[in-house]
Protein backbone atom coordinates (compact mmCIF):
# COMPACT_ATOMS: atom_id res chain seq x y z
CA UNK A 1 0.00 0.00 0.00
CA UNK A 2 2.80 2.43 0.88
CA UNK A 3 4.43 1.74 -2.44
CA UNK A 4 1.14 2.25 -4.25
CA UNK A 5 0.52 5.60 -2.56
CA UNK A 6 4.10 6.73 -3.25
CA UNK A 7 4.03 5.80 -6.92
CA UNK A 8 0.55 7.22 -7.45
CA UNK A 9 1.54 10.54 -5.92
CA UNK A 10 4.80 10.71 -7.84
CA UNK A 11 2.77 10.22 -10.97
CA UNK A 12 0.31 12.92 -9.91
CA UNK A 13 3.22 15.26 -9.31
CA UNK A 14 4.46 14.85 -12.85
CA UNK A 15 0.94 15.08 -14.28
CA UNK A 16 0.48 18.30 -12.32
CA UNK A 17 3.75 19.73 -13.68
CA UNK A 18 2.66 18.81 -17.19
CA UNK A 19 -0.68 20.54 -16.70
CA UNK A 20 -2.78 17.39 -16.91
CA UNK A 21 -4.01 17.76 -13.34
CA UNK A 22 -5.57 21.18 -12.62
CA UNK A 23 -6.13 22.98 -9.34
CA UNK A 24 -4.38 22.31 -6.06
CA UNK A 25 -2.94 18.96 -5.06
CA UNK A 26 -1.43 18.21 -1.67
CA UNK A 27 0.86 15.19 -1.62
CA UNK A 28 1.53 12.89 1.32
CA UNK A 29 4.92 11.69 0.09
CA UNK A 30 6.88 10.70 3.19
CA UNK A 31 3.71 10.14 5.22
CA UNK A 32 2.46 6.95 3.54
CA UNK A 33 3.05 4.73 6.57
CA UNK A 34 0.26 6.51 8.45
CA UNK A 35 -2.38 5.86 5.80
CA UNK A 36 -1.18 2.33 5.11
CA UNK A 37 -0.79 1.38 8.76
CA UNK A 38 -4.14 2.73 9.90
CA UNK A 39 -5.87 1.43 6.76
CA UNK A 40 -4.59 -2.09 7.49
CA UNK A 41 -6.47 -2.04 10.80
CA UNK A 42 -9.85 -1.17 9.28
CA UNK A 43 -12.73 -3.22 7.96
CA UNK A 44 -14.93 -2.30 5.01
CA UNK A 45 -17.79 -1.18 7.31
CA UNK A 46 -15.51 1.28 9.12
CA UNK A 47 -15.59 4.90 7.96
CA UNK A 48 -12.86 7.46 7.37
CA UNK A 49 -13.03 11.26 7.24
CA UNK A 50 -9.88 12.71 5.81
CA UNK A 51 -8.01 15.91 5.05
CA UNK A 52 -6.84 17.94 2.07
CA UNK A 53 -3.82 15.59 2.02
CA UNK A 54 -6.05 12.56 1.65
CA UNK A 55 -4.94 10.49 -1.36
CA UNK A 56 -3.22 7.91 0.84
CA UNK A 57 -6.16 7.62 3.25
CA UNK A 58 -8.52 7.07 0.33
CA UNK A 59 -6.32 4.46 -1.35
CA UNK A 60 -5.74 2.66 1.94
CA UNK A 61 -9.50 2.52 2.55
CA UNK A 62 -9.90 0.66 -0.70
CA UNK A 63 -11.01 3.15 -3.31
CA UNK A 64 -10.60 2.07 -6.89
CA UNK A 65 -7.57 3.38 -8.77
CA UNK A 66 -9.19 4.07 -12.15
CA UNK A 67 -11.95 6.29 -10.84
CA UNK A 68 -9.43 7.99 -8.53
CA UNK A 69 -7.28 9.11 -11.45
CA UNK A 70 -10.39 10.02 -13.44
CA UNK A 71 -11.58 12.24 -10.59
CA UNK A 72 -8.30 14.05 -10.13
CA UNK A 73 -8.14 14.62 -13.88
CA UNK A 74 -11.70 16.00 -13.94
CA UNK A 75 -13.45 13.23 -15.83
CA UNK A 76 -17.15 12.33 -15.83
CA UNK A 77 -16.37 8.77 -14.78
CA UNK A 78 -14.34 9.95 -11.78
CA UNK A 79 -15.51 8.79 -8.38
CA UNK A 80 -17.09 12.19 -7.81
CA UNK A 81 -17.83 12.81 -11.49
CA UNK A 82 -15.17 15.48 -11.68
CA UNK A 83 -16.87 17.80 -9.18
CA UNK A 84 -14.53 17.43 -6.26
CA UNK A 85 -11.05 16.68 -7.50
CA UNK A 86 -8.06 15.88 -5.32
CA UNK A 87 -9.40 17.61 -2.19
CA UNK A 88 -12.68 15.67 -2.20
CA UNK A 89 -11.91 12.09 -3.20
CA UNK A 90 -14.59 9.91 -1.64
CA UNK A 91 -16.21 6.53 -2.03
CA UNK A 92 -19.15 5.84 0.25
CA UNK A 93 -19.24 2.18 -0.79
CA UNK A 94 -15.94 1.59 1.02
CA UNK A 95 -16.62 4.01 3.88
CA UNK A 96 -14.38 6.79 2.58
CA UNK A 97 -16.40 9.86 3.59
CA UNK A 98 -14.14 12.20 1.73
CA UNK A 99 -10.99 14.19 1.74
CA UNK A 100 -11.83 17.71 2.86
CA UNK A 101 -10.82 21.20 1.81
CA UNK A 102 -11.36 22.72 5.25
CA UNK A 103 -8.68 22.13 7.91
CA UNK A 104 -10.14 20.12 10.79
CA UNK A 105 -13.58 19.75 9.21
CA UNK A 106 -13.34 15.98 8.88
CA UNK A 107 -12.95 15.57 12.65
CA UNK A 108 -16.58 16.29 13.65
CA UNK A 109 -17.80 14.45 10.54
CA UNK A 110 -16.05 11.33 11.85
CA UNK A 111 -17.57 11.94 15.27
CA UNK A 112 -21.00 12.05 13.63
CA UNK A 113 -20.25 8.90 11.70
CA UNK A 114 -19.22 7.23 14.96
CA UNK A 115 -22.48 8.42 16.49
CA UNK A 116 -24.32 6.67 13.68
CA UNK A 117 -22.32 3.49 14.22
CA UNK A 118 -23.05 3.56 17.94
CA UNK A 119 -26.75 4.36 17.50
CA UNK A 120 -27.19 1.67 14.87
CA UNK A 121 -25.09 -0.80 16.87
CA UNK A 122 -23.27 -1.99 13.75
CA UNK A 123 -19.87 -2.49 15.42
CA UNK A 124 -18.11 -0.12 13.04
CA UNK A 125 -15.44 2.42 13.91
CA UNK A 126 -14.94 5.89 12.44
CA UNK A 127 -11.47 7.31 11.88
CA UNK A 128 -10.68 11.02 11.77
CA UNK A 129 -7.39 11.83 10.10
CA UNK A 130 -6.05 15.31 10.74
CA UNK A 131 -2.73 17.07 10.70
CA UNK A 132 -1.04 18.95 13.50
CA UNK A 133 -2.21 22.09 11.72
CA UNK A 134 -5.74 21.22 12.87
CA UNK A 135 -4.79 21.14 16.55
CA UNK A 136 -5.74 24.77 17.01
CA UNK A 137 -9.16 24.31 15.40
CA UNK A 138 -12.03 24.57 17.88
CA UNK A 139 -13.87 21.59 16.42
CA UNK A 140 -11.03 19.29 17.48
CA UNK A 141 -11.46 20.31 21.11
CA UNK A 142 -15.25 20.06 20.87
CA UNK A 143 -14.99 16.69 19.16
CA UNK A 144 -12.66 15.22 21.79
CA UNK A 145 -15.16 16.27 24.43
CA UNK A 146 -18.22 14.92 22.63
CA UNK A 147 -16.55 11.63 21.71
CA UNK A 148 -15.37 11.09 25.27
CA UNK A 149 -18.73 12.12 26.72
CA UNK A 150 -20.67 9.69 24.54
CA UNK A 151 -17.93 6.99 24.41
CA UNK A 152 -18.10 7.00 20.64
CA UNK A 153 -16.25 4.40 18.54
CA UNK A 154 -13.83 6.83 16.92
CA UNK A 155 -10.07 6.82 16.41
CA UNK A 156 -8.49 10.25 16.08
CA UNK A 157 -5.29 9.97 14.04
CA UNK A 158 -3.03 12.99 14.24
CA UNK A 159 -0.59 12.95 11.37
CA UNK A 160 2.05 15.19 12.88
CA UNK A 161 4.42 16.43 10.18
CA UNK A 162 5.40 19.58 12.06
CA UNK A 163 3.86 21.95 9.54
CA UNK A 164 0.67 23.99 9.68
CA UNK A 165 0.54 24.76 5.98
CA UNK A 166 3.36 27.34 5.59
CA UNK A 167 4.31 27.73 9.26
CA UNK A 168 5.91 25.42 11.81
CA UNK A 169 3.26 24.13 14.21
CA UNK A 170 5.62 24.93 17.08
CA UNK A 171 4.92 28.61 16.38
CA UNK A 172 1.14 28.09 16.34
CA UNK A 173 0.15 25.69 19.06
CA UNK A 174 1.40 25.62 22.65
CA UNK A 175 -0.02 22.26 23.74
CA UNK A 176 0.30 18.83 22.17
CA UNK A 177 -2.32 16.38 21.07
CA UNK A 178 -1.59 13.78 23.73
CA UNK A 179 -1.93 16.23 26.61
CA UNK A 180 -5.11 17.48 25.01
CA UNK A 181 -6.47 13.93 24.78
CA UNK A 182 -5.51 13.40 28.42
CA UNK A 183 -7.48 16.46 29.44
CA UNK A 184 -10.60 14.74 28.09
CA UNK A 185 -9.67 11.36 29.57
CA UNK A 186 -8.94 9.85 26.16
CA UNK A 187 -6.18 7.24 26.00
CA UNK A 188 -3.51 8.06 23.49
CA UNK A 189 -0.24 6.82 22.05
CA UNK A 190 2.54 8.39 20.04
CA UNK A 191 4.24 6.26 17.41
CA UNK A 192 6.96 6.71 14.83
CA UNK A 193 4.69 7.54 11.92
CA UNK A 194 7.38 6.60 9.44
CA UNK A 195 7.42 3.02 10.68
CA UNK A 196 4.64 1.22 8.85
CA UNK A 197 4.70 -1.78 11.12
CA UNK A 198 4.58 0.32 14.29
CA UNK A 199 1.65 2.33 12.96
CA UNK A 200 -0.21 -0.84 11.91
CA UNK A 201 0.26 -2.51 15.30
CA UNK A 202 -0.77 0.56 17.26
CA UNK A 203 -3.72 1.25 14.96
CA UNK A 204 -4.97 -2.32 15.28
CA UNK A 205 -4.95 -2.06 19.07
CA UNK A 206 -6.63 1.33 19.18
CA UNK A 207 -9.21 0.53 16.52
CA UNK A 208 -10.29 -2.52 18.49
CA UNK A 209 -10.40 -0.48 21.70
CA UNK A 210 -12.52 2.17 19.97
CA UNK A 211 -14.76 -0.54 18.56
CA UNK A 212 -15.36 -1.80 22.08
CA UNK A 213 -16.51 1.69 22.98
CA UNK A 214 -14.73 4.95 23.48
CA UNK A 215 -12.43 7.21 21.53
CA UNK A 216 -8.66 6.82 21.19
CA UNK A 217 -5.97 9.15 19.90
CA UNK A 218 -3.02 7.97 17.85
CA UNK A 219 -0.31 10.49 17.11
CA UNK A 220 1.98 9.57 14.22
CA UNK A 221 5.19 11.57 13.96
CA UNK A 222 6.07 11.91 10.31
CA UNK A 223 7.54 14.25 7.74
CA UNK A 224 6.01 16.21 4.89
CA UNK A 225 8.62 15.73 2.19
CA UNK A 226 6.94 17.99 -0.37
CA UNK A 227 5.52 21.47 0.03
CA UNK A 228 2.09 22.27 1.39
CA UNK A 229 0.83 22.02 -2.19
CA UNK A 230 2.51 20.97 -5.40
CA UNK A 231 4.38 23.94 -6.76
CA UNK A 232 4.94 25.41 -3.28
CA UNK A 233 8.39 27.08 -3.48
CA UNK A 234 8.78 26.52 0.30
CA UNK A 235 10.81 29.67 0.87
CA UNK A 236 9.63 29.53 4.48
CA UNK A 237 11.30 26.17 5.06
CA UNK A 238 14.83 25.45 6.26
CA UNK A 239 14.49 22.14 8.08
CA UNK A 240 16.93 20.35 5.80
CA UNK A 241 16.48 17.47 3.43
CA UNK A 242 14.64 14.33 4.42
CA UNK A 243 16.84 11.71 6.04
CA UNK A 244 16.75 8.77 3.62
CA UNK A 245 16.95 6.43 6.63
CA UNK A 246 13.64 7.78 7.90
CA UNK A 247 11.77 7.26 4.65
CA UNK A 248 8.85 4.96 5.47
CA UNK A 249 8.98 3.19 2.14
CA UNK A 250 12.74 2.52 2.30
CA UNK A 251 12.30 1.21 5.83
CA UNK A 252 9.53 -1.16 4.82
CA UNK A 253 11.52 -2.46 1.89
CA UNK A 254 14.54 -2.99 4.15
CA UNK A 255 12.30 -4.89 6.52
CA UNK A 256 11.06 -7.11 3.69
CA UNK A 257 14.63 -7.84 2.70
CA UNK A 258 15.52 -8.66 6.30
CA UNK A 259 12.59 -11.07 6.26
CA UNK A 260 14.23 -12.76 3.28
CA UNK A 261 11.83 -11.49 0.65
CA UNK A 262 13.85 -11.58 -2.55
CA UNK A 263 14.64 -8.51 -4.63
CA UNK A 264 12.94 -10.23 -7.52
CA UNK A 265 9.69 -10.47 -5.56
CA UNK A 266 9.94 -6.84 -4.45
CA UNK A 267 10.63 -5.79 -8.02
CA UNK A 268 7.67 -7.74 -9.30
CA UNK A 269 5.35 -6.01 -6.79
CA UNK A 270 6.64 -2.70 -8.08
CA UNK A 271 6.23 -3.72 -11.72
CA UNK A 272 2.64 -4.82 -11.10
CA UNK A 273 1.81 -1.56 -9.36
CA UNK A 274 3.33 0.51 -12.11
CA UNK A 275 1.30 -1.28 -14.74
CA UNK A 276 -1.87 -0.76 -12.66
CA UNK A 277 -1.08 2.94 -12.43
CA UNK A 278 -0.31 3.15 -16.15
CA UNK A 279 -3.59 1.43 -16.94
CA UNK A 280 -5.55 3.75 -14.64
CA UNK A 281 -3.91 6.78 -16.18
CA UNK A 282 -4.63 5.61 -19.71
CA UNK A 283 -8.24 4.97 -18.78
CA UNK A 284 -8.48 8.43 -17.22
CA UNK A 285 -7.00 10.09 -20.30
CA UNK A 286 -9.53 8.30 -22.49
CA UNK A 287 -12.48 9.06 -20.20
CA UNK A 288 -15.11 11.68 -21.10
CA UNK A 289 -14.87 15.15 -19.57
CA UNK A 290 -17.05 16.10 -16.60
CA UNK A 291 -20.66 16.87 -17.51
CA UNK A 292 -21.90 20.33 -16.47
CA UNK A 293 -25.59 19.52 -16.97
CA UNK A 294 -25.37 16.38 -14.87
CA UNK A 295 -23.57 18.37 -12.17
CA UNK A 296 -26.29 21.00 -12.17
CA UNK A 297 -28.90 18.28 -11.74
CA UNK A 298 -27.13 16.83 -8.71
CA UNK A 299 -27.33 19.80 -6.34
CA UNK A 300 -30.43 18.21 -4.80
CA UNK A 301 -31.68 14.64 -4.76
CA UNK A 302 -33.82 13.53 -7.68
CA UNK A 303 -37.54 13.78 -7.08
CA UNK A 304 -37.11 16.05 -4.10
CA UNK A 305 -38.68 19.46 -4.43
CA UNK A 306 -36.07 21.92 -5.68
Amino acid sequence: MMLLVRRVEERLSSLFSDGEVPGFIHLSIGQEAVAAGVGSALEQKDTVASTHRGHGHALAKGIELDSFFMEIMGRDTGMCRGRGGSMHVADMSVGMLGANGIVGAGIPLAVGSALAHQTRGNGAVAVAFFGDGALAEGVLHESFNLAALWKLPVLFVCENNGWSEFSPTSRQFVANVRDLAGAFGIESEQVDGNDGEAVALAAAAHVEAARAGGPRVLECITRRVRGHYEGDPQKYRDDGDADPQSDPLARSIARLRAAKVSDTDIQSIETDLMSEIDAALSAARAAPPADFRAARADVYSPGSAA
Partner: protein
Amino acid sequence: MTEMRFGKALGQALEDAMAADDSVMVFGEDVAAAGGPFGVTRGLLEKFGPVRVRDTPISEATLVSAAVGAAMSGLRPVVEIMFMDFITLGMDGLVNQAAKARFMFGAQSSVPMVLRTPHGGGLSAGPQHSQCLEAWFAHVPGLKVVCPATAADAYGLLRAAINDPDPVIFVENKSIYARKEQVPDVLEIVPIGQARTAREGRDATIVAYGAMVQTSLEAANTLSEDGIETEVIDLRSIQPWDEKAVLDSLSRTHRLVIVHEAVEAFGVGAEIAARMADIGFDELDAPIVRVGAPFMPVPFAKPMEDRYRPDSNRIVDAVRRVLA
Protein backbone atom coordinates in the same frame (compact mmCIF):
# COMPACT_ATOMS: atom_id res chain seq x y z
CA MET B 1 -60.67 19.79 14.46
CA THR B 2 -58.60 20.00 17.63
CA GLU B 3 -56.75 22.80 19.36
CA MET B 4 -52.97 22.58 19.26
CA ARG B 5 -50.10 24.91 19.99
CA PHE B 6 -47.56 25.59 17.23
CA GLY B 7 -44.75 24.21 19.41
CA LYS B 8 -46.74 21.08 20.26
CA ALA B 9 -47.29 20.39 16.55
CA LEU B 10 -43.52 20.38 16.08
CA GLY B 11 -43.08 18.00 19.00
CA GLN B 12 -45.78 15.75 17.58
CA ALA B 13 -44.00 15.68 14.23
CA LEU B 14 -40.74 14.64 15.91
CA GLU B 15 -42.53 11.96 17.89
CA ASP B 16 -44.33 10.53 14.87
CA ALA B 17 -41.19 10.62 12.73
CA MET B 18 -39.19 8.80 15.41
CA ALA B 19 -41.91 6.21 15.81
CA ALA B 20 -42.06 5.69 12.05
CA ASP B 21 -38.32 5.41 11.42
CA ASP B 22 -35.63 4.07 13.77
CA SER B 23 -32.95 6.05 12.00
CA VAL B 24 -34.40 9.39 13.14
CA MET B 25 -32.63 10.80 16.16
CA VAL B 26 -32.77 14.14 17.95
CA PHE B 27 -29.91 15.98 19.57
CA GLY B 28 -29.02 19.49 20.65
CA GLU B 29 -28.43 21.67 23.64
CA ASP B 30 -30.95 20.92 26.43
CA VAL B 31 -33.35 19.04 24.15
CA ALA B 32 -33.52 15.80 26.15
CA ALA B 33 -33.85 16.09 29.93
CA ALA B 34 -34.98 19.71 29.85
CA GLY B 35 -37.28 19.20 26.83
CA GLY B 36 -35.83 22.08 24.84
CA PRO B 37 -35.66 25.78 25.66
CA PHE B 38 -39.16 26.26 24.21
CA GLY B 39 -40.47 22.83 25.23
CA VAL B 40 -40.69 21.47 21.68
CA THR B 41 -38.84 18.23 22.44
CA ARG B 42 -40.51 17.60 25.80
CA GLY B 43 -41.31 13.94 26.35
CA LEU B 44 -39.11 12.53 23.57
CA LEU B 45 -36.40 11.31 25.95
CA GLU B 46 -38.97 9.38 27.97
CA LYS B 47 -40.50 7.85 24.84
CA PHE B 48 -37.40 7.03 22.82
CA GLY B 49 -34.55 6.82 25.35
CA PRO B 50 -31.10 8.36 25.68
CA VAL B 51 -29.58 6.74 22.59
CA ARG B 52 -31.93 8.49 20.17
CA VAL B 53 -32.60 11.67 22.15
CA ARG B 54 -29.43 13.35 23.40
CA ASP B 55 -28.44 16.47 25.25
CA THR B 56 -25.22 17.84 23.83
CA PRO B 57 -22.53 20.13 25.13
CA ILE B 58 -22.56 23.74 23.94
CA SER B 59 -20.52 23.02 20.82
CA GLU B 60 -22.56 24.18 17.86
CA ALA B 61 -19.84 23.69 15.24
CA THR B 62 -19.38 20.06 16.17
CA LEU B 63 -23.10 19.39 16.58
CA VAL B 64 -23.85 20.53 13.07
CA SER B 65 -20.94 18.67 11.48
CA ALA B 66 -21.67 15.56 13.55
CA ALA B 67 -25.20 15.65 12.16
CA VAL B 68 -23.68 15.73 8.66
CA GLY B 69 -21.39 12.78 9.42
CA ALA B 70 -24.26 10.85 11.00
CA ALA B 71 -26.50 11.57 8.01
CA MET B 72 -23.78 10.28 5.67
CA SER B 73 -23.60 7.11 7.77
CA GLY B 74 -27.21 6.01 7.81
CA LEU B 75 -29.07 8.19 10.32
CA ARG B 76 -31.65 10.93 9.88
CA PRO B 77 -30.53 13.35 12.58
CA VAL B 78 -32.64 16.29 13.68
CA VAL B 79 -30.31 18.73 15.38
CA GLU B 80 -31.55 21.79 17.25
CA ILE B 81 -29.69 25.09 17.41
CA MET B 82 -31.18 26.92 20.37
CA PHE B 83 -31.37 30.36 18.72
CA MET B 84 -30.77 31.01 15.05
CA ASP B 85 -28.11 33.55 16.00
CA PHE B 86 -25.93 30.67 17.26
CA ILE B 87 -25.90 29.08 13.81
CA THR B 88 -22.95 31.31 12.94
CA LEU B 89 -20.84 28.80 14.90
CA GLY B 90 -22.04 25.93 12.73
CA MET B 91 -21.55 27.45 9.31
CA ASP B 92 -18.80 25.13 8.08
CA GLY B 93 -20.91 22.05 8.68
CA LEU B 94 -23.84 23.53 6.81
CA VAL B 95 -22.22 25.49 4.02
CA ASN B 96 -19.06 23.54 3.21
CA GLN B 97 -20.11 20.04 4.21
CA ALA B 98 -23.89 19.38 4.23
CA ALA B 99 -24.72 21.61 1.27
CA LYS B 100 -22.00 20.24 -0.96
CA ALA B 101 -21.71 16.56 -0.09
CA ARG B 102 -24.21 15.29 -2.63
CA PHE B 103 -22.86 17.40 -5.48
CA MET B 104 -19.19 17.20 -4.56
CA PHE B 105 -19.18 13.42 -4.22
CA GLY B 106 -20.92 12.88 -7.54
CA ALA B 107 -24.31 12.01 -5.98
CA GLN B 108 -22.86 9.06 -4.08
CA SER B 109 -24.37 10.32 -0.85
CA SER B 110 -27.08 12.61 0.35
CA VAL B 111 -27.27 14.31 3.72
CA PRO B 112 -30.75 13.67 5.14
CA MET B 113 -30.44 15.95 8.16
CA VAL B 114 -32.72 18.61 9.57
CA LEU B 115 -31.50 21.60 11.53
CA ARG B 116 -34.32 23.13 13.60
CA THR B 117 -33.81 26.63 14.90
CA PRO B 118 -35.95 29.53 16.15
CA HIS B 119 -35.66 32.99 14.62
CA GLY B 120 -37.37 36.31 15.14
CA GLY B 121 -37.98 38.99 17.70
CA GLY B 122 -40.82 40.02 19.91
CA LEU B 123 -39.34 38.76 23.15
CA SER B 124 -36.93 41.65 23.82
CA ALA B 125 -34.18 39.10 23.50
CA GLY B 126 -31.78 41.60 21.97
CA PRO B 127 -29.40 41.64 19.02
CA GLN B 128 -27.95 38.12 19.48
CA HIS B 129 -31.15 36.18 20.21
CA SER B 130 -33.60 37.58 17.67
CA GLN B 131 -32.17 37.53 14.17
CA CYS B 132 -33.82 36.15 11.04
CA LEU B 133 -30.91 34.77 9.02
CA GLU B 134 -32.76 32.44 6.64
CA ALA B 135 -31.68 34.31 3.50
CA TRP B 136 -28.06 33.30 4.14
CA PHE B 137 -28.98 29.64 3.74
CA ALA B 138 -31.32 30.17 0.81
CA HIS B 139 -28.24 31.57 -0.97
CA VAL B 140 -26.29 28.32 -0.63
CA PRO B 141 -26.90 25.71 -3.35
CA GLY B 142 -27.63 22.35 -1.74
CA LEU B 143 -29.53 23.55 1.33
CA LYS B 144 -33.30 23.72 1.66
CA VAL B 145 -34.98 26.28 3.89
CA VAL B 146 -38.46 25.95 5.33
CA CYS B 147 -40.43 28.29 7.61
CA PRO B 148 -43.97 27.31 8.64
CA ALA B 149 -46.70 29.80 9.56
CA THR B 150 -49.34 27.51 11.08
CA ALA B 151 -49.41 24.60 13.50
CA ALA B 152 -50.65 22.21 10.80
CA ASP B 153 -47.77 23.24 8.55
CA ALA B 154 -45.31 23.07 11.43
CA TYR B 155 -46.24 19.41 11.72
CA GLY B 156 -46.52 18.67 8.01
CA LEU B 157 -43.39 20.47 6.89
CA LEU B 158 -41.25 19.05 9.70
CA ARG B 159 -42.33 15.52 8.75
CA ALA B 160 -41.46 16.32 5.12
CA ALA B 161 -38.11 17.80 6.14
CA ILE B 162 -37.19 14.69 8.12
CA ASN B 163 -38.17 12.46 5.20
CA ASP B 164 -36.25 14.63 2.75
CA PRO B 165 -32.98 13.22 1.40
CA ASP B 166 -31.29 16.63 1.46
CA PRO B 167 -30.26 18.93 4.34
CA VAL B 168 -33.12 21.16 5.48
CA ILE B 169 -32.86 24.27 7.65
CA PHE B 170 -36.17 24.33 9.51
CA VAL B 171 -36.86 27.81 10.83
CA GLU B 172 -39.43 28.36 13.58
CA ASN B 173 -40.62 31.81 14.64
CA LYS B 174 -40.22 31.84 18.39
CA SER B 175 -43.01 34.36 18.95
CA ILE B 176 -45.63 31.82 17.85
CA TYR B 177 -44.53 28.65 19.71
CA ALA B 178 -47.28 29.12 22.30
CA ARG B 179 -50.00 30.18 19.87
CA LYS B 180 -53.06 27.89 19.92
CA GLU B 181 -54.72 27.02 16.63
CA GLN B 182 -57.38 24.72 15.28
CA VAL B 183 -55.79 21.82 13.41
CA PRO B 184 -57.32 18.81 11.64
CA ASP B 185 -57.68 15.66 13.76
CA VAL B 186 -55.30 13.88 11.42
CA LEU B 187 -52.24 15.93 10.54
CA GLU B 188 -50.77 15.41 7.08
CA ILE B 189 -47.27 15.67 5.64
CA VAL B 190 -46.90 18.91 3.63
CA PRO B 191 -44.56 18.78 0.63
CA ILE B 192 -41.59 21.15 0.64
CA GLY B 193 -41.71 23.76 -2.10
CA GLN B 194 -45.47 24.33 -2.31
CA ALA B 195 -46.95 27.63 -1.19
CA ARG B 196 -50.41 27.94 0.37
CA THR B 197 -53.06 30.54 -0.32
CA ALA B 198 -53.85 31.77 3.18
CA ARG B 199 -56.47 34.23 1.94
CA GLU B 200 -57.91 34.87 -1.49
CA GLY B 201 -58.25 38.37 -2.90
CA ARG B 202 -58.39 40.17 -6.24
CA ASP B 203 -56.70 43.51 -5.63
CA ALA B 204 -53.14 42.81 -4.50
CA THR B 205 -50.90 39.92 -3.49
CA ILE B 206 -48.95 39.72 -0.27
CA VAL B 207 -46.24 37.06 -0.10
CA ALA B 208 -45.04 36.22 3.42
CA TYR B 209 -43.71 33.34 5.47
CA GLY B 210 -43.51 32.35 9.11
CA ALA B 211 -45.05 34.66 11.70
CA MET B 212 -45.52 37.41 9.11
CA VAL B 213 -48.31 35.40 7.45
CA GLN B 214 -50.59 36.08 10.43
CA THR B 215 -49.54 39.74 10.49
CA SER B 216 -50.31 39.94 6.76
CA LEU B 217 -53.76 38.40 7.32
CA GLU B 218 -54.46 41.05 9.94
CA ALA B 219 -53.44 43.71 7.42
CA ALA B 220 -55.69 42.09 4.81
CA ASN B 221 -58.65 42.24 7.20
CA THR B 222 -58.03 45.93 7.83
CA LEU B 223 -57.85 46.62 4.09
CA SER B 224 -61.01 44.60 3.53
CA GLU B 225 -62.92 47.12 5.66
CA ASP B 226 -62.11 49.63 2.91
CA GLY B 227 -63.16 47.20 0.20
CA ILE B 228 -59.60 46.20 -0.74
CA GLU B 229 -59.31 42.43 -1.08
CA THR B 230 -55.78 41.17 -0.67
CA GLU B 231 -54.53 37.71 -1.50
CA VAL B 232 -52.05 36.34 1.06
CA ILE B 233 -49.62 33.68 -0.14
CA ASP B 234 -47.89 31.74 2.61
CA LEU B 235 -44.60 30.73 1.03
CA ARG B 236 -43.93 27.88 3.52
CA SER B 237 -40.63 27.02 1.79
CA ILE B 238 -38.00 29.63 1.05
CA GLN B 239 -35.58 27.35 -0.80
CA PRO B 240 -37.03 26.04 -3.03
CA TRP B 241 -39.81 28.66 -3.22
CA ASP B 242 -43.02 28.29 -5.18
CA GLU B 243 -42.40 30.66 -8.05
CA LYS B 244 -45.45 29.45 -9.92
CA ALA B 245 -47.86 30.14 -7.04
CA VAL B 246 -46.54 33.69 -6.68
CA LEU B 247 -46.65 34.33 -10.42
CA ASP B 248 -50.19 32.91 -10.66
CA SER B 249 -51.40 35.20 -7.90
CA LEU B 250 -49.60 38.20 -9.39
CA SER B 251 -51.25 37.41 -12.72
CA ARG B 252 -54.64 37.81 -11.03
CA THR B 253 -53.95 40.85 -8.86
CA HIS B 254 -51.14 42.61 -10.80
CA ARG B 255 -49.75 44.07 -7.58
CA LEU B 256 -47.18 42.53 -5.25
CA VAL B 257 -46.02 43.18 -1.70
CA ILE B 258 -43.46 40.90 -0.06
CA VAL B 259 -43.23 40.76 3.71
CA HIS B 260 -40.66 39.30 6.05
CA GLU B 261 -39.35 39.96 9.52
CA ALA B 262 -35.75 39.69 8.33
CA VAL B 263 -33.79 42.75 7.30
CA GLU B 264 -35.21 44.00 4.00
CA ALA B 265 -31.90 44.63 2.20
CA PHE B 266 -30.51 41.62 0.29
CA GLY B 267 -33.27 39.45 1.71
CA VAL B 268 -35.69 36.77 0.52
CA GLY B 269 -37.98 39.55 -0.71
CA ALA B 270 -35.25 40.91 -2.96
CA GLU B 271 -34.97 37.56 -4.72
CA ILE B 272 -38.72 37.20 -5.18
CA ALA B 273 -39.03 40.79 -6.40
CA ALA B 274 -36.20 40.37 -8.87
CA ARG B 275 -37.65 37.15 -10.21
CA MET B 276 -41.16 38.57 -10.57
CA ALA B 277 -39.81 41.71 -12.22
CA ASP B 278 -38.27 39.35 -14.76
CA ILE B 279 -40.84 36.64 -15.47
CA GLY B 280 -43.87 38.63 -14.28
CA PHE B 281 -43.02 42.03 -15.77
CA ASP B 282 -46.03 42.10 -18.09
CA GLU B 283 -48.38 41.39 -15.20
CA LEU B 284 -47.19 44.23 -12.99
CA ASP B 285 -49.33 47.34 -12.70
CA ALA B 286 -47.17 48.88 -9.97
CA PRO B 287 -43.67 48.59 -8.58
CA ILE B 288 -43.09 45.65 -6.24
CA VAL B 289 -42.84 46.78 -2.63
CA ARG B 290 -41.02 45.00 0.19
CA VAL B 291 -41.79 45.22 3.88
CA GLY B 292 -38.99 44.06 6.14
CA ALA B 293 -36.88 45.15 9.05
CA PRO B 294 -34.65 48.22 8.69
CA PHE B 295 -30.94 47.70 8.06
CA MET B 296 -29.89 47.53 11.71
CA PRO B 297 -29.45 44.88 14.41
CA VAL B 298 -32.56 43.88 16.37
CA PRO B 299 -32.85 46.34 19.27
CA PHE B 300 -33.60 45.24 22.83
CA ALA B 301 -35.87 47.93 24.33
CA LYS B 302 -39.51 47.00 23.78
CA PRO B 303 -40.66 50.22 22.04
CA MET B 304 -37.64 50.04 19.73
CA GLU B 305 -38.20 46.39 18.93
CA ASP B 306 -41.89 47.05 18.24
CA ARG B 307 -40.90 49.73 15.79
CA TYR B 308 -38.26 47.48 14.23
CA ARG B 309 -40.51 44.50 13.45
CA PRO B 310 -42.93 44.85 10.54
CA ASP B 311 -46.49 45.18 11.78
CA SER B 312 -49.85 45.16 10.06
CA ASN B 313 -49.89 48.96 9.72
CA ARG B 314 -46.73 48.90 7.64
CA ILE B 315 -48.17 46.14 5.47
CA VAL B 316 -51.43 48.09 5.01
CA ASP B 317 -49.40 51.14 3.96
CA ALA B 318 -47.41 49.06 1.48
CA VAL B 319 -50.55 47.62 -0.11
CA ARG B 320 -52.05 51.10 -0.38
CA ARG B 321 -48.84 52.20 -2.09
CA VAL B 322 -49.04 49.52 -4.77
CA LEU B 323 -52.71 50.37 -5.31
CA ALA B 324 -52.15 54.11 -5.49
